[in-house]
């Protein structure tokens, strides 16, 4: 394991040397939307493309084998990183959105031969939460619409956690799926996975975890969590865009119908019919994203080398500094649990009284402080709290305390700037 030296970590990220048009350093606080990539990830992709590129699992020439080996060993690396012991359980997808859609579509693609627990039908129920990213809400809304099932949701409480008061009535023997996020991409709330899994199991429902915001920022072990499926995204964990993953229990995947059809996912094809390959191939139709998988494995190696526990602690300190700092500014409200809540994660959303987040973000941008503004693909959450949107800072391995202070300064500057127009 490598020493924690923030300067040497920062030196791994070429983009951090970029400046604004007027020469100020950029303060990148938008890793929750997409993370920057260290040189090690970029080099891994370049090395593959310049030395080994070929279609995987096709043909027998030397390059084809050269490409297949690192692709499959990337799967192993990534699987192990999230606690998956059988790499057949890790399906490469183009992003987490696709991973969640694969589950939602597969659950309505079955026929009479599909086991009942893997087929959502009229009269069934699907339970989600009010804090979900659209990627873990819209596919379930549409699954309900296609099948005649009913969508229900766990509401948000005033303290930005899930209100589990009525959990026992929200879950019924008709509930087939419970889909929820590990940690909110807006409020930073970490959900009680164990409690939700236990309750879902009591009624025999499948659990689907959106782990997009947790996998990059803390140790995640999908087996320990006890969920049935988990989705995460490469570009939020220092890896490339165009790759994500769906993890699922093998015994479930093995009985689920495919969603995308075509090359690579077949066993035998005749003019009349086709039989399908075992997972993961069954869910990976077509030529896959090869250099991206290799880049993501390099990102996983990079994260592992720093240690997920240390990354989580680094971000916990930054989050505490940011939340406390923002709470101390007059007219600023942090939209998320206070910094003293144990396990609060590092998405720090805030609202400035009387100012639209877009206007706040514009002033921050002029100071080189890059945050995300808007509803962060969690429109129902913002509606719940009566907000048109929020500004959100999020952190990564390369974020410094000085950068958090720059955020606080720029928020004060924005408030002063708009006060001129009172």
């Amino acid at each position, binding site marked *: 394991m490598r020493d924690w030296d923030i300067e040497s970590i920062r030196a791994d990220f070429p983009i951090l040397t970029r400046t604004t048009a007027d020469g100020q350093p950029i303060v990148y606080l938008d890793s929750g939307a997409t993370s920057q990539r260290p040189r090690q990830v970029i080099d891994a992709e370049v090395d593959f493309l310049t030395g080994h590129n070929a279609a995987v699992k096709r043909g027998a020439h030397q390059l084809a084998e050269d490409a297949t080996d690192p692709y499959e060993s990337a799967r192993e690396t990534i699987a192990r990183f999230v606690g998956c012991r059988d790499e057949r359980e890790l399906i490469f997808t183009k992003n987490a959105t696709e991973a969640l859609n694969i589950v939602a579509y597969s659950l309505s693609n079955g026929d009479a031969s599909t086991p009942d627990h893997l087929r959502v039908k009229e009269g069934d129920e699907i339970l989600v939460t009010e804090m979900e990213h659209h990627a873990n809400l819209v596919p379930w809304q549409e699954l309900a619409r296609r099948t005649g099932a009913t969508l229900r949701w766990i509401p948000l409480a005033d303290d930005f956690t899930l209100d589990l008061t009525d959990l026992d009535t929200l879950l019924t023997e008709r509930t087939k799926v419970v889909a929820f996020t590990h940690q909110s991409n807006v409020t930073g709330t970490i959900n009680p996975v164990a409690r939700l899994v236990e309750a879902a199991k009591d009624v025999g429902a499948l659990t689907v975890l959106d782990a997009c915001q947790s996998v990059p920022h803390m140790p995640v072990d999908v087996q320990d969590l006890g969920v049935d499926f988990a989705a995460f995204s490469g570009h939020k964990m220092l890896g490339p865009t165009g790759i994500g993953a769906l993890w699922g229990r093998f015994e479930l995947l093995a009985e689920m119908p495919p969603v995308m059809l075509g090359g690579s996912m077949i066993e035998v094809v005749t003019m009349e019919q086709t039989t399908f390959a075992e997972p993961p191939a069954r869910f990976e139709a077509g030529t896959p994203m090869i250099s991206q998988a290799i880049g993501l494995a390099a990102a996983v190696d990079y994260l592992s080398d720093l240690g997920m526990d240390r990354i989580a602690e680094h971000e916990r300190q930054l989050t505490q500094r940011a939340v406390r700092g923002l709470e101390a500014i007059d007219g600023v409200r942090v939209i998320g649990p206070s910094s003293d809540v144990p396990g609060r994660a590092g998405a720090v959303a805030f609202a400035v009284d009387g100012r*639209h987040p877009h206007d706040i973000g*514009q002033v921050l941008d002029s100071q080189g402080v890059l945050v995300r503004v808007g*509803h962060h693909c969690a429109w129902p959450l913002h509606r719940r709290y009566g907000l*048109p949107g929020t500004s959100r800072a999020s952190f990564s391995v390369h974020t410094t305390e000085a950068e958090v202070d720059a955020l606080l300064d720029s928020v004060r500057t924005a408030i002063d*700037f708009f006060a001129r127009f009172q």
Partner: protein
Amino acid sequence: MTSPLTALYSELIFDHDKHPQNAGLRDPFDAEVHHVNPTCGDEITLRIRLSEDGRRVEDLPYEAQGCAMSRASASIMTDLFIGRTREEIEEISAHMDEAMHSRGRIAGDEDVLGDGVALTGASKFPGRVKCVLMAWKAYQAALADALTARKDTENDR
């Protein structure tokens, strides 16, 4: 403070943001549209009332939620359009569109745009162009709906 920011935000913008002109959903109206900016959640509900002969815009009642730029834009636009003929409005809109897509090269003619020149500073900020133009696109849609509705009524006669 860097200068581009003051080019974007002026006293005038905040006047319209805080004291929006013509706001409120009044009756009667010929058509109503609801436009959203899905990336940031800005919303406008815009109604249009045309004169008896359909040539003139008599009222543009609206309700707008969003950033200062989008709200000021709705306020300024309705001030400019109400009482004008469709032809006059088309000319103003075309000029506004050109300025807003000029990436800061065209400031806009004050004789044509009036207070609207205060909005064209946003053309230097590609991410903000849609904030300004949301109300203007809503007008185009509302007008099209109003004209269709009138044609349908005439055909029914």
